C-alpha cells in the first residue's frame, strides 16, 4: 500500500529531474556557444595581434632603413667637409712654413674643389630623394633644389 502512495512522489521527482536535466542541457548548449564565441574572439584577437606585430616589425625595419640612409647621406656630406678642413689646414701650414710650390698648391686646391663638388652633388641628390613624390613644391623651386 505504501508503494502505491509513493508513486506520485517518484513521478514528481522524475519530472523535476527531467526538467533539471533539460535545463543543464540547455545551459551546456549555451556554454558551448559562449565557448565558441570566446574561441572566435581569441582567434580574432590573435589575428589582430599578429597583424600589429607585423606592422610594428615593418615600421622598425623602415626606421632602420631611414636611419641607415640618413647616416650614409650625412656621412657622404660630412666626410668631404672634414677633408676640405684638413686640406685647408695643410695649405695654411705649408704657407706659414713657406714650403709650397705652385704644383703643391694646385694639387691641394684641386682636392678641395673635388670635395666641394661632391658636397654639392650629394645635397642635390638628397633634395631629389626628399622631393620625390611630393607635389607641394613649386616647379621653379624644385628646379633650384635639384639642378
Amino acid at each position: 500500500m505504501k508503494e502505491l502512495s509513493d508513486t506520485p512522489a517518484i513521478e514528481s521527482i522524475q519530472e523535476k529531474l527531467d526538467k533539471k536535466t533539460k535545463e543543464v542541457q540547455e545551459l551546456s548548449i549555451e556554454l558551448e556557444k559562449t565557448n565558441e564565441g570566446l574561441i572566435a574572439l581569441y582567434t580574432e584577437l590573435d589575428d589582430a595581434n599578429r597583424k600589429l606585430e607585423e606592422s610594428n616589425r615593418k615600421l622598425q625595419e623602415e626606421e632602420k632603413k631611414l636611419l641607415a640612409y640618413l647616416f650614409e647621406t650625412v656621412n657622404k656630406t660630412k666626410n668631404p667637409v672634414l677633408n676640405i678642413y684638413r686640406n685647408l689646414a695643410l695649405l695654411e701650414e705649408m704657407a706659414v712654413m713657406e714650403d709650397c710650390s705652385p704644383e703643391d698648391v694646385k694639387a691641394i686646391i684641386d682636392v678641395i674643389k673635388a670635395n666641394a663638388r661632391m658636397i654639392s652633388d650629394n645635397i642635390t641628390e638628397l633634395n631629389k630623394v626628399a622631393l620625390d613624390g611630393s607635389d607641394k613644391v613649386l616647379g621653379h623651386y624644385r628646379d633650384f633644389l635639384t639642378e
Partner: protein
Amino acid sequence: MPPINEILSDADIVIALATSSAMRKDVIHRIGELHSAGYSGIIISINEPSSIMKKSLEKQSINSQNLFFIDCITGMATGQKKDESATIYVASPGQLTNIGIALTKAMTSMKDRERLYLLVDSVNTMFVYNEPDQIIRFLHMLINKVRLNSAKGLLFSVKNAIDPIISTQIETFADMVIHQGEEGA
C-alpha cells in the same frame, strides 16, 4: 700610445681610429715609425695626394724609396695621371677593382721586401664613393691579401665617421683596434 712595432708584434691587421684633425699627422707619424722599424710599405692614399704625402715624409726625413703609393685622389681631382715607378694613379676612390689590381702590382713589385705593410689613409672616406656592402667586401679581400702575403695592415679611419653596425663588421676583420692619441690604448 705604444710604438707601432710593438702593436704589430701582437697583431697583423690593425684598425687605427683617429680624430679628423689629427689623422693626417698620425698617418705620417706611423709611417715614420714603420720606416724606422725597417718596414717597406704600400700606401693607399684616399685623402691626400701622394705628392703632398711624399713631401710631408721628406720633411720628417723619411725616405719614400721604401714606399709604393696607390694614389686614388690625384686622378679624381686633377684628371688622370700617368703612373710612375712606385706610384699608381687610380682615377677615383670609387674604382675598387682598379685599386685591387694596383695592389696586386704593388705587392708583386715589393715581394722581395722582408717586412711589408699596407696602409690605407682613410677607410671612412671610401664610404663617400662606394656602397657599404662593396667596401666591406673590398676590405675583406684586401685584408686576406695582406695576410696571405705575410704582411701587416694598418687601416686608418676617423672616429665615429662610419655607421656603427658597419664599423663593427669591419672591426671583426682586424686583430686589434687602436685609438690614436689616447693613453694606454
